């Protein structure tokens, strides 16, 4: 099963991509992009009332939701967001304490995983240069579709040094970027609880469709 674990719709202030347009694109590109679903990870927010079930039924794709928050160790994807997590952490705070967030999210039923760790300023690698490693990290986004040359490569050493699991996501802000990088799971993921369990348990790998898309073009 293949999911794009890092996407932004027009609910994020820096994206103009409607969710339905992402789904239309994935259906149109199905042979090249065998994506089974996406996880919307809007910036610094969580809308408990968003409901995409009608779109899931219409397009036959899974839509799960998380959030991308900002911490003192860079940006972090949070999956399994619930009331307890949003009561404890203000997602609009761009200086959330990562050392507190990561174990707390886990204790409250979710998982918090650093994204684009190879980026300057907002990536984990840069913060590990002058701060101690964080406790409780299970996985990092090893493959990010928005990273520049060298940024994804930088993550390989981080993973080797700390034994983190590796997943991928497009970090799409534009319709045509959806699914370019994703994560292949050995197990079926149908719910956000499944996703949290799968990320905690292992049995997944990042997968890159960019070369395949370039070949088609």
């Amino acid at each position, binding site marked *: 099963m293949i999911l794009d674990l890092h996407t932004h719709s027009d609910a994020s*202030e820096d994206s103009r991509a409607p969710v339905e347009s992402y789904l239309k694109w994935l259906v149109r590109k199905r042979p090249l992009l065998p994506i089974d679903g996406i996880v919307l990870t809007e910036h610094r927010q969580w809308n408990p009332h968003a409901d995409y079930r009608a779109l899931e039924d219409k397009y036959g794709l899974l839509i799960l939701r998380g959030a991308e928050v900002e911490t003192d160790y860079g940006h972090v994807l949070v999956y399994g967001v619930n009331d307890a997590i949003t009561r404890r952490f203000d997602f609009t705070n761009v200086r959330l304490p990562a050392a507190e967030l990561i174990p707390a999210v886990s204790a409250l039923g979710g998982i918090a995983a650093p994204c684009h760790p190879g*980026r300057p300023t*907002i990536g984990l690698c840069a913060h590990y240069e002058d701060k101690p490693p964080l406790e409780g990290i299970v996985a990092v986004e090893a493959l990010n579709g928005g990273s520049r040359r060298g940024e994804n490569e930088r993550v390989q050493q981080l993973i080797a040094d700390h034994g983190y699991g590796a997943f991928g996501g497009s970090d799409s802000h534009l319709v045509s970027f959806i699914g370019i990088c994703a994560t292949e799971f050995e197990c079926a993921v149908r719910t956000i609880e499944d996703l949290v369990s799968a990320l905690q348990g292992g049995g997944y790998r990042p997968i890159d469709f960019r070369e395949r898309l370039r070949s088609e073009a």
Partner: protein
Amino acid sequence: MAITIDRSVVGSEFDRTTHPPVAQTEVDAYAAASGESCPADGVAPPTFVVSLRSHRFMPKSLARLGRAGLDAGKDIELGAPIRVGDVLTTVSTVHDIYEKTGRSGPMGFLVLRTVVTNQRDEGVAVIDQRMMFR
């Protein structure tokens, strides 16, 4: 310089301007400048709304957001067409102010919303102007 985010200003109106009637010469000049080769007679190109100059572009009493700022883009929701002779009113408010971090460090964003109506109280446009500061 640290970025100061004061969300108490969100929602505050800082300008209300009623503009002189739209003149054909203004429409022609805008069309020529924007490359509109064949404007409909008496109707302005939709993005003509961004050429309106209100009394005040920024709130007067805004805490210093950073050392420098730049235009970070506009979203425009269009309504009724603008016709020559229309008297347009613009009302500007602070719509949002927030901070985020990017590759180059922390950034402050100010979103100024301008609602444009005509003399018939029809909605002509809602313009969200985003400014980035650091």
